[in-house]
């Protein structure tokens, strides 16, 4: 391997990471403005034109803030925990293709870090590392709220990881490959979100739970646990948790776009592969808006109901979706897939309604 290739990789890595970090910074701005619009407020509009410099002001403030470590805490793990949380949030994007192959200065450059043959598996395994950061943060703080938040988030993340993983299986079945670029190319005709709409919805909710975003933000339930696992963190260490959450939002939106919404594909992509990142950006933008919208409009689910939803509704549902996909492919009747899966989704909604009704008469 020549050194030019290594430099290309380092530069690509840096560009991607910088893009992610900028994305994180401006996602906080986007979210605050978006929430403000929904809530008939103005939102940050003081730092720079239309408040555009707000993320920079926040960053500067957080860098210069004093950080304190509680005396009771287990110091090493306390410092390690935010780092462990951030890293998978960044690494998860390594296999996401941001476009086809473009020519820059005579070099064929693939837009994306690595196109490995088990891309999907890589995403799943890296994503589950994040739970260590959270649970270790909760444990090392030696604080009751943090401890409870840490435990909650462990249970929540592992519960929804199953639904997440099984939704991946559905996509793999449809694309017949675990390689991300091939999954994108398989959506040349029809985006998987239309072929498997229920799978897309299940995946979206499972990722919300994975991200600890509302309505599944139990681990950091402000109203219940003050702030959950990160209650003892301050300054930059706190910012790292924040960064992990928002970077992961960007990464996971990219993954959702890739798996279900045609990835970098869009009009004229075959003639102008440079458009890929733009299409990705637009798709990510909309998916992020969905996440913000959900957060703004729904109350928080109670913890035991969240677990019920994960284990008793989403897990059987996604198992049945795997089943449906396999059947459709075997019989070579693709129209069966959306039809049957919508039926299954309808059943799941009925099950949720039923469980609500039963609780009505109970204490």
């Amino acid at each position, binding site marked *: 391997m020549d050194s030019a290739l290594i430099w290309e990789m380092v530069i690509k890595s840096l560009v991607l990471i910088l893009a992610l970090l900028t994305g994180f910074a401006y996602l906080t701005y986007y979210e605050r403005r978006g*929430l403000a619009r*929904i*809530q*008939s*407020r103005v939102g940050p509009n003081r730092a720079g034109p239309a408040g555009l410099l707000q993320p920079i002001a926040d960053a500067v403030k957080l860098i210069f803030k004093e950080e304190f470590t509680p005396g009771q805490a287990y110091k090493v793990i306390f410092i390690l925990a935010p780092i462990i949380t951030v890293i998978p949030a960044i690494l998860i994007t390594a296999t996401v293709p941001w476009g086809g192959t473009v020519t820059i200065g005579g070099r064929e450059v693939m837009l994306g870090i690595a196109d490995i043959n088990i891309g999907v598996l890589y995403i799943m395994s890296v994503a589950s590392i994040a739970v260590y950061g959270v649970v270790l943060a909760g444990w090392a703080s030696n604080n*009751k*709220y943090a401890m*409870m938040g840490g435990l909650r988030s462990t249970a929540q993340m592992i519960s929804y990881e199953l639904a997440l993983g099984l939704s991946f299986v559905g996509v793999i079945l449809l694309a017949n490959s675990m390689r991300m670029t091939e999954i994108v190319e398989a959506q040349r005709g029809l985006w998987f979100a239309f072929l498997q709409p229920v799978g897309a919805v299940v995946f979206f909710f499972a990722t919300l739970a994975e991200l600890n975003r*509302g*309505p599944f*933000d*139990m681990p950091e*339930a*402000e*109203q*219940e*646990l*003050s702030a959950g696992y990160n209650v003892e963190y301050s300054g930059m260490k706190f910012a790292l948790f924040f960064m992990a959450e928002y970077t992961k939002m960007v990464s996971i939106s990219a993954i959702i776009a890739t798996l279900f919404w045609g990835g970098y594909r869009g009009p004229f992509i075959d003639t102008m592969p440079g458009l890929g990142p733009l299409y990705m950006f637009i798709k990510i933008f909309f998916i992020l808006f969905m996440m913000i919208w959900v*957060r*703004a*409009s*729904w*109350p*928080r*689910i*109670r*913890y*035991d*109901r969240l677990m019920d939803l994960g284990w008793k509704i989403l897990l059987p549902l996604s198992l049945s979706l795997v089943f449906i996909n396999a059947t459709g492919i075997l019989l070579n009747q693709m129209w069966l897939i959306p039809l049957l899966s919508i039926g299954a989704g309808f059943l799941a909604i009925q099950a*949720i*309604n039923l469980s*609500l009704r039963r*609780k*009505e*008469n*109970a*204490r």
Partner: protein
Amino acid sequence: MTESDFATRLNDRFPEGVTADEREGYQGYIIAADKLIEFATALRDEFEFDYLSSVTGVDYPDEGKLEAVYHAYKTIGGAELVFKVQTDRENPEIPSLIDIYPGADFQEREAWDLLGIKFTGHPDLRRILLWEGFEGHPLRKDWQEAYYEADKKPFKSRWPKAEYTRAEAKNPYGANVKYPDKFDPEKWVPEGEDALYGSLAKYETTDKDGLKTDHLTVNLGPQHPSTHGVFRIAATLDGEKIMNLNPVMGYLHRNHEKIGERNTYLQNMPFTDRLDYLSSLSNNFGYAIAVEKLIGIEVPERAEYIRVIMAELTRVQNHLFAIGMFLNDIGAFFTPSLYAIEERELVLDVFEMVTGSRMMCNYLRFGGLARDLPDGSLQKIRDLVFDRLPRKTDEMDRFLSENEILRSRTVGQGYLSTEDAIKYSAAGPVLRASGVPYDIRRADPYSIYDRFKFDVAVRYNGDIYDRYYIRLDEIRESIKILQQAVEQIPEGEIQTGKPRYQMKVPKGESYGRVEGPKGELGFYLVSDGTGNPYRYHVRAPSFINLTAFGPMCKGLKVADVVAVLGSIDIVLGETDR
């Protein structure tokens, strides 16, 4: 049954130990301490006074007596029954009524805390508003606040010989508190903590398979985002389940009642604004009614209408805020609350226009109002109550009430049965959501509420959802009243006689109560004939509704505690007084 029938029946039942209170201006009965339990049991079971609304005390040092004062009602409606128990000042002991009326729990603790009346038989007679280890009982007349200049306002001469000292100069930092002997604040550990955690007890359980689980003792509050102020809940948890829970309050205590005794009657009017600071006009209303009962003056027609309009607008804006904040408590990220606050601001605009202030309105006067409605304000109210508010209430109902997450969080949770609601002296929406159609505006009408057509909002499930939904019902009923009042309001005077700035109030006692947004808001006043109230007691609905909080929460999850608390809708300014 007339008043005298009742007196005869009471006399037949208790030939001894129950005598009518014949002091000038006083009403009710004086019960002998040893007859109290029997009397209260009979009152509840035979005379149908099933609702003990208020328990407090008055200190009469000249007679060497402490007097406990009880106000009881029938939940089917009607006027109150006042009964009192007198006890020796040196060794004040009165049997506790907690077994007969569990709602007396916190109020007896408060009376012990502030007046030093020992309620024998109370299982947990700790201080409730002040800290454990506080010296003395501040509502006793011989208790002096350290370094405070005079007993009463207005002072004879605040700065005699034109030279004055500032209180701060006389009280160097840290020295303006009276401590018990040999007390070192630096080394102080609150004594109450052990008792508090002791009352929760049990740190470990073993299930049938021999698996041990440690229980977690955790404090929610005072510095906590969803306790609506500095309120604290000490709880033992088994995993996420609440095993036991104790509310702790008093962090915002400023001895409202002692300060009220030092103020003149009129000075207390703005002071009541600070009780439940979200609904200051209702507080004004209750206090004005209590004082007007004492001095026996009527209020002109127009003033009554304006009072009702203002009180109902207060209820609307309070409930809007309550619903919004309740949704915040169950985790809706500010959107419902900001939508509700948007409407509330419009109501506050009316308040600002009419009273000059958005929150601390200080608008009512004895026998009338501070000023008439300014031009255009009526039109503004009309626009609100005929168009905007009904529309927005329906919109809020449509957006929120059928939300699956909200329903799953609230339906069937935090249950308070009808019997318990009465037993625990719950008031207002909390009582009515448990199926008791008790609204003072109907049950014991005051002001001009008997003229309006409206329904008493009532719901029957007693869960969080009903306590949420009943607030929407009440907003709708209030809007009905407002629509009638705005149409009917006559022209005329707004004040009977001259405005009363400083006045002598005849001797006696009175209890004025209104249906505040949070429940029955009562003011118990005792006058000794001077310009300052001799005793000024507030029956705070937020405070007394919390009595049922612990029983409601047992067995729920941590997240539900917050929801239950939000559904009670407390304001700490009133709870801690």
